[in-house]
């Protein structure tokens, strides 16, 4: 109570409320309302006195009780006193009726189940003449319709009644009581229009009934005063949300336009809000007002600025993106700190979606980083780096610009991070120099300059742990990019300083990198360029740009084949995730993958194949096939050149499976063109295993048997996932025909498009005579189509030399798997 704790008064208030004296009662209830709220346990003591008072003969006392109930009722109190309130709702006294109606609202809100009790009475309220009762009744019905859909359907019938009331109000003559500066009872009008909006939403019939009256209200209401404007506002909202006809919509938008140019701030605020809501309906109209909106961005009033900002973001599309972004960037410079995070995110998202060309995109993001780098979110930074790696032609440009901005200002966190990363990656381009643009010459930068810069950043006040880690990694990368020995020496010295750092991560990196200096032969390979990252739509929860219908291609535009959670892993291992970008870039990535160590990669690769096939809709299967082919290109199997332009995945498979060998590719393959998921078998130790894999519970299907190599499948449904079939592949060496150990066994398999294949590494790469080698294949078959496999088998036998063969297997019984 006015800031002071007032627990002592609570019991006193209750006692007062229970006393028979009216003045005491009045004070008591007032005190209760002020001191107590619904969560206090003391409130339950009040229930009894309330009950008595609700049945009192004096209407004022009843009124008091209803008032208290309506303001602070809790759930239990509502349940107890619900029947009383219902009875009062039916009383003939206006005063009581309207209070009871509003009380019912509170009860319904607290205990939604009790809503049905009130529906009957509420409809009768609509026919009352008294404005107060009508007002409360309409509020009650509005609340009920919002809460429950059936009530809404029930009250749709009341639309004509409402329309009639509204008509009376609008066309009635001057009535002194309800008049507010010339408009008859605007509150009632507004409430009716609001209820009409709720009832008419998505319902064409009711909307038609309302059309005339809405038009009448919209045209007749005087808009010079606030009252009129409030009614017009409500009307516009209703027109927007119900399926009304076009003339009305045009009328509404005109009204909004008038609002926007009104000098009163409130009205402008309201107009901006409504435009935001209606932008999905009619963008062109809003575009017309673009200039005014941009002016509002610079208004002194913060509420208007906020609204204008939101609206501007929704307005961005391909045609006006440059202009708008320029304005927004200018605004970013002067904006308050609370706006900055969301602004940076939205600007970057907009740039990504609508960038007319890459250079502009990079420029814009650079500006954002420079202006508000500290407020840029991580996802934006990642997107920026991704973008940089993709635009190889602009590498020089980007790195030059970043270098220049870093030299001038290292206070912005994200800017420094991205700058350091890019310099690390493309340091050689930086020192190479030369012109990169029509007029501008690249500034001459020497290697020691770059290292100086990095050193200064390290020593500077802004270097936090993450930044230091980045710098160390960048320094290492530079050693393989830069040619002079002095740079390597300097880097070694810098690293040596960190080998004793307290932070574990930094120390680890420093020590490992220092050791790496001893392995000069693989150092370049390890420090190779990062491959191009996939194009991904950056989605940030809650910060999506409001895209008008035209921009809905967003999510599909990514067309990424690689799953996002594999990204990080793959980046770490220096393997591209593939897919989405052009083939040319992927083949550029392929040689680099060839360089990376094979040894520890295959496990990951096995997961990859499972991973890279998931979530690729058929349309993107071509790029993913291409990518995967190239990946396997690096592993030394037979895919000769990168597959030709994605003609058909069929063609890809043929290429994969060995440059057009026509031996056993059945002519029926085209329709069933499969997504290739080839896997190479890994060298491993021989494993002597009893050849009798045909355990009693499992079937054994012979697949291929030539030149001494016999392959058989043993399928088994996976216990954990009913859609997955595990196939145990057994390679057996019949010594009689092969003549010795069969070496370099490679087994490639492909499944139909509706299935996904995952191959585990084989137990061995050589099959000694009489022994077996096993490999597990997992096939995910959610659509339960018959499993068919196309196989390519490559091996070398002493007797027959290198053999490469195709086979097809569809021998599983129909419907079994």
């Amino acid at each position: 109570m006015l800031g002071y704790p007032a627990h002592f008064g609570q019991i006193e208030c209750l006692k007062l409320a229970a006393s028979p004296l009216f003045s005491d009662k009045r004070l008591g209830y007032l005190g209760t309302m002020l001191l107590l709220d619904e969560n206090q346990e003391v409130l339950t003591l009040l229930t009894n006195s309330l009950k008595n008072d609700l049945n009192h003969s004096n209407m004022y006392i009843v009124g008091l009780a209803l008032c208290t109930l309506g303001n602070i009722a809790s759930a239990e109190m509502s349940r107890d006193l619900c029947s009383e309130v219902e009875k009062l709702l039916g009383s003939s006294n206006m005063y009581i009726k309207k209070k009871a109606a509003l009380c019912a609202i509170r009860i319904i809100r607290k205990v939604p189940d009790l809503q049905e009790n009130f529906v009957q009475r509420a409809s009768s309220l609509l026919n009352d003449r008294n404005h107060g009762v009508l007002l409360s009744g309409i509020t009650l019905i509005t609340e009920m319709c919002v809460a429950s859909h059936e009530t809404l359907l029930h009250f749709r019938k009341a639309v004509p009644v409402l329309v009639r009331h509204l008509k009376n109000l609008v066309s009635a003559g001057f009535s002194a009581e309800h008049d507010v500066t010339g408009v008859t009872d605007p509150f009632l009008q507004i409430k009716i229009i609001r209820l009409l909006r709720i009832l008419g939403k998505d319902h064409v019939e009711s909307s038609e009934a309302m059309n005339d009256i809405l038009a009448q209200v919209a045209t007749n209401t005087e808009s010079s005063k606030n009252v009129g404007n409030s009614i017009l506002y409500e009307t516009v909202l209703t027109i927007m949300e119900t399926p009304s006809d076009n003339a009305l919509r045009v009328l509404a938008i005109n009204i909004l336009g008038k609002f926007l140019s009104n000098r009163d701030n409130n009205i402008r605020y309201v107009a901006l809000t409504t435009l935001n809501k209606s932008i999905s309906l009619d963008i062109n109209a809003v575009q017309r007002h673009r200039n005014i909106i941009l002016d509002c961005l610079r208004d002194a009033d913060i509420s208007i600025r906020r609204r204008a900002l939101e609206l501007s973001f929704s307005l961005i599309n391909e045609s006006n993106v440059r202009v708008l972004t320029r304005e927004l960037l200018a605004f970013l410079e002067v904006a308050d700190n609370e706006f900055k995070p969301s602004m940076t995110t939205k600007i970057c998202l907009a740039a990504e979606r609508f960038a007319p060309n890459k250079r502009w995109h990079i420029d814009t993001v650079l500006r954002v980083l420079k202006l508000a780098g500290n407020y840029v979110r991580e996802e934006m930074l990642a997107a920026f780096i991704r973008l940089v790696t993709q635009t190889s032609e602009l590498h020089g440009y980007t790195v030059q610009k970043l270098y220049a901005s870093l030299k001038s200002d290292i206070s912005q966190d994200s800017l420094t991070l991205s700058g350091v990363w890019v310099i690390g990656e493309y340091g050689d381009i930086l020192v190479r120099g030369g012109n990169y643009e029509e007029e501008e010459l690249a500034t001459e930068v020497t290697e020691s300059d770059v290292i100086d810069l990095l050193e200064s950043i390290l020593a500077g006040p802004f270097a936090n742990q993450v930044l230091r880690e980045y710098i160390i990694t960048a320094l290492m990368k530079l050693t393989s990019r830069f040619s002079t020995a002095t740079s390597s020496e300097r880097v070694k010295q810098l690293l040596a300083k960190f080998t004793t750092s307290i932070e574990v991560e930094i120390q680890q990196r420093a020590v490992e990198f220092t050791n790496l200096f001893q392995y000069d032969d693989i150092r370049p390979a390890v420090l190779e360029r990062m491959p191009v990252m996939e194009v991904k739509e950056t989605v940030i929860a809650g910060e999506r740009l409001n895209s008008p219908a035209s921009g809905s291609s967003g999510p599909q535009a990514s067309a990424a084949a690689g799953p996002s959670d594999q990204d990080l892993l793959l980046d770490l291992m220096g393997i591209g995730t593939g897919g989405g970008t052009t083939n040319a870039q992927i083949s550029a990535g392929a040689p680099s993958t060839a360089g990376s160590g094979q040894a520890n990669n295959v496990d990951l690769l096995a997961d990859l194949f499972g991973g890279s096939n998931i979530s690729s809709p058929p349309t993107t299967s071509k790029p993913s096939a291409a990518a995967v082919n190239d990946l396997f290109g690096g592993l030394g199997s037979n895919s000769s050149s990168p597959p030709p332009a994605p003609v058909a995945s069929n063609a890809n498979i043929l290429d994969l499976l060995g440059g057009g060998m026509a031996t056993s590719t059945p002519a029926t393959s085209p329709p069933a063109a499969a997504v290739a998921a080839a896997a190479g078998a890994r060298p491993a130790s021989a494993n002597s295993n009893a050849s009798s894999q045909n355990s009693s519970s499992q079937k054994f299907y012979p697949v291929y048997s030539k030149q001494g190599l016999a392959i058989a499948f043993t399928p088994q449904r996976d216990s954990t996932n009913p859609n997955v079939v595990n196939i145990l592949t057994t390679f057996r060496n019949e010594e009689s025909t092969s003549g010795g150990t069969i070496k370099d066994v490679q087994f490639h398999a492909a499944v139909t498009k509706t299935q996904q294949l995952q191959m585990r590494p084989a137990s061995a790469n050589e099959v000694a005579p009489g022994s077996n080698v096993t490999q597990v294949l997992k096939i995910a078959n959610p659509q339960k189509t018959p499993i068919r496999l196309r196989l390519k088998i490559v091996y070398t036998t002493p007797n027959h030399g290198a053999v490469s063969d195709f086979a097809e297997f569809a021998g599983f019984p129909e419907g079994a798997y």
Partner: protein
Amino acid sequence: INFILVFNRQGKIRLTRWYQHFSEKQKSSLSQDIVTQILARKRGMCNILELEGRREARGKAIYKRYASLFFCFGIDWNDNELSGLEVLHKYVECLDQYFGNVCELDIIYNYSAAYQVMDEMLLGGHAQETNKKIVVKHCKGFDKLEESDSIVHNLRASNIA
């Protein structure tokens, strides 16, 4: 309407009414916040404030200044702000008519009457009666009832004695 705040130019709160449930801490922090924000606004600015940050009190605050007092209503996001301003104005008019030329002192000394008027006009956060005459009539009826009741009570007490 979620809450009502009336305060003067020095930031002292005169009347409050909370129609939604807020804890004590929330109430005080919210009021302080709003008071500081509104007092900082200049004359020509929009009467609508956006309250962000707090989850429960998300919404807008509309306010208007009358002489030395600020009246502030807190409303939901999708409520009609202009109509809220109208209700605010109506409330002040009712106060004016009831007290006859109301000023801040009236509200300080007769705050129960001010609350009475408020309760006659708004219940549970919704407007129940917008007719000035009726509102004032009922409030005066309350007063009369109270007087008559206390007279009866006193008589009875003196009789017994």
